[in-house]
């Protein structure tokens, strides 16, 4: 990524974070491979990863950009359907599961990116409530179009026969890849431009930042990553239906972002883990799930609107002795413990 100053990131930060990720992978992989985590629970784990992708990508549009985006699930849907159809089409031509996944996902990202462009361009002319409603409206329209393309998608009856090529390592590393990309993007010059738009649109425009271009950029990137989430989702369950990508799903993702803190990637990750696993573990009480979500949301907005982590990121390096963190001035003004 040009204009990104690697020196500022600090080799130590990179090393520490990479190491932590590897350790986490080994632990989880062991649980999965030995069967301690059954197929059903592994599926939940993969769902958590999907939500992490969905919430961190929405964070670009909502948290960092400050725009109210209530149609994110539609892009997940576009991604899911595109990837599924490509997967079904190319299954016989491509033997390798990983390759099939990569190619299908790239196709999904392209289509979602185009959709993001088409939708974002008119939508982002508006602000605040109106933008939110626009995105809501677009989300419903996308869902209707997918449902009505019955010959291709089988409509509301759902698309089945999607090759079940998803497994834990693929999902895990794709998620790591996406989150890393988002993190790097937000720490680049482009990312800072986006942050400045949230803080004060008029001021940033007067400094020479092309706000329409950046709003659109953020929106399109968020949409493309949403497609990745949709792709993993589809290849995991083997069956998708339009109702999985409706307004309620957009709200679910939105709730995760708000509760984690709009503008905090770590917040989104933590909130994803908690809000997906809790209702599954407490399946007997699943009727209370949405009651819990919504009362949490209302309470949060009333008393702690900045969410769990506000705009801060979790910094692993605070755990290490001082001598490992000397030349990292990236976190000076931004990072701190929760």
């Amino acid at each position: 990524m040009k204009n990104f100053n690697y020196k500022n990131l600090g080799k130590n930060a990179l090393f520490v974070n990479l190491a932590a990720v590897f350790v986490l992978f080994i632990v989880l992989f062991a649980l999965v491979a030995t069967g301690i985590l059954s197929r059903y629970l592994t599926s939940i784990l993969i769902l958590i990863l999907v939500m992490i992708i969905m919430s961190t990508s929405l964070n670009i549009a909502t948290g960092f950009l400050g725009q109210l985006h209530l149609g994110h699930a539609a892009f997940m849907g576009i991604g899911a359907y595109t990837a599924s159809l490509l997967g079904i089409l190319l299954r016989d031509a491509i033997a390798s599961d990983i390759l099939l996944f990569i190619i299908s996902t790239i196709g999904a990202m392209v289509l979602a990116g185009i959709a993001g462009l088409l939708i974002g361009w008119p939508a982002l002319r508006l602000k605040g409530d109106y933008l939110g409603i626009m995105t809501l409206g677009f989300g419903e329209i996308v869902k209707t179009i997918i449902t009505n393309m019955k010959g291709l998608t089988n409509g509301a009856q759902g698309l089945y026969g999607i090759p079940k090529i998803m497994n834990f390592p693929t999902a895990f590393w794709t998620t790591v890849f996406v989150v890393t990309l988002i993190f790097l993007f937000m720490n680049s010059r482009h990312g800072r431009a986006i942050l400045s738009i949230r803080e004060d649109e008029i001021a940033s425009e007067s400094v020479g930042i092309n706000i329409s271009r950046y709003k659109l950029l953020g929106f399109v990137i968020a949409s493309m990553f949403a497609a990745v989430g949709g792709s993993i989702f589809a290849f995991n369950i083997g069956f998708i239906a339009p109702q999985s990508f409706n307004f309620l799903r957009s709200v679910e993702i939105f709730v995760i972002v708000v509760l984690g803190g709009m503008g905090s990637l770590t917040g989104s990750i933590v909130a994803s883990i908690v809000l997906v696993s809790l209702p599954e573990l407490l399946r007997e009480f699943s009727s209370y799930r949405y009651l819990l979500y919504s009362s949490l949301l209302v309470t949060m907005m009333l008393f702690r609107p900045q969410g769990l982590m506000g705009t801060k990121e979790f910094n692993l390096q605070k755990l290490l002795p001082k001598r490992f963190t000397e030349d990292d001035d990236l976190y000076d003004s931004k990072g701190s413990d929760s």
Partner: protein
Amino acid sequence: MDLFIEQLINGLNTGSIYALIAVGYTMVYGIIRLINFAHGEIMMFGAYFAFIFAFMMPFELPFLVVIVITMIFAALMGMLIERVAYKRLRTAPRISALITAIGMSLFLQNLALLIFGATPWVMKPLISTEPIVIGNFSIARLTVLTIGLSIFFMVLLTLFVRKTKPGKAMRAVSQDKEAAVLMGINVNRIISLTFALGSALGALAGVFYAMQYTNVESTLGVLPGLKAFVAAVFGGIGNITGAMIGGYLIGIIETFVKAYISSKWVDAIVFGLLILTLLFKPSGLLGKNEKEKV
């Protein structure tokens, strides 16, 4: 020709319900600039209240009494929600208020799920099901009631807003809150009144909806709420007459799309209308163009 008129009546029927709900949205937006996502849920609770008062009381209540009591309860509920959730956020950024409204909507849906159960309550007819026959036409009694009562209450509301003192106070607060305070208007009370009136009408819509479509369930208000909201925007958000016209128009458009094209395009067309409105004339049919202050 007969068929066309019959479809028009169908459209007015659906439109009446949308209009009643849309008025509630528009009044609240006009006065505190909030899109009350939870309004559809008031409609839903209205349906449940009507069922309870009509069928679950130890004594039998006449139909009109059921309606009035339902509207009163809904008004109280609306005022309570405003006091508990929205009052604190009057000075907060709009995004927070909107999120709270969405949260409130979800909360109420699931509260209803918890209290009333997931199996729909089937509404038995509350009035005679014999159609009214005029020459060639037969119209359902319920349709006449829906269209008639809706128009009646909306005219009542318009008169209230135009002619009475609290009505004028409502208009004053929506025009300029600070000036209204300076004039000695108790803004809190006016806002509560607005919510009460909007909720009462929304609940009435819920009653009609339940009577026509028999199934009362927790998600009853979601889709009609969204469509009525589109109607409010289309007619001019903040403008009561606009909301009414918007409601009837959306009802008619929806019916004609179902009759002559297919119901599978209804949602896309209605939301498409929303998007076109927002892009080209955000103030809607009857709204005034408000320049955004820098």
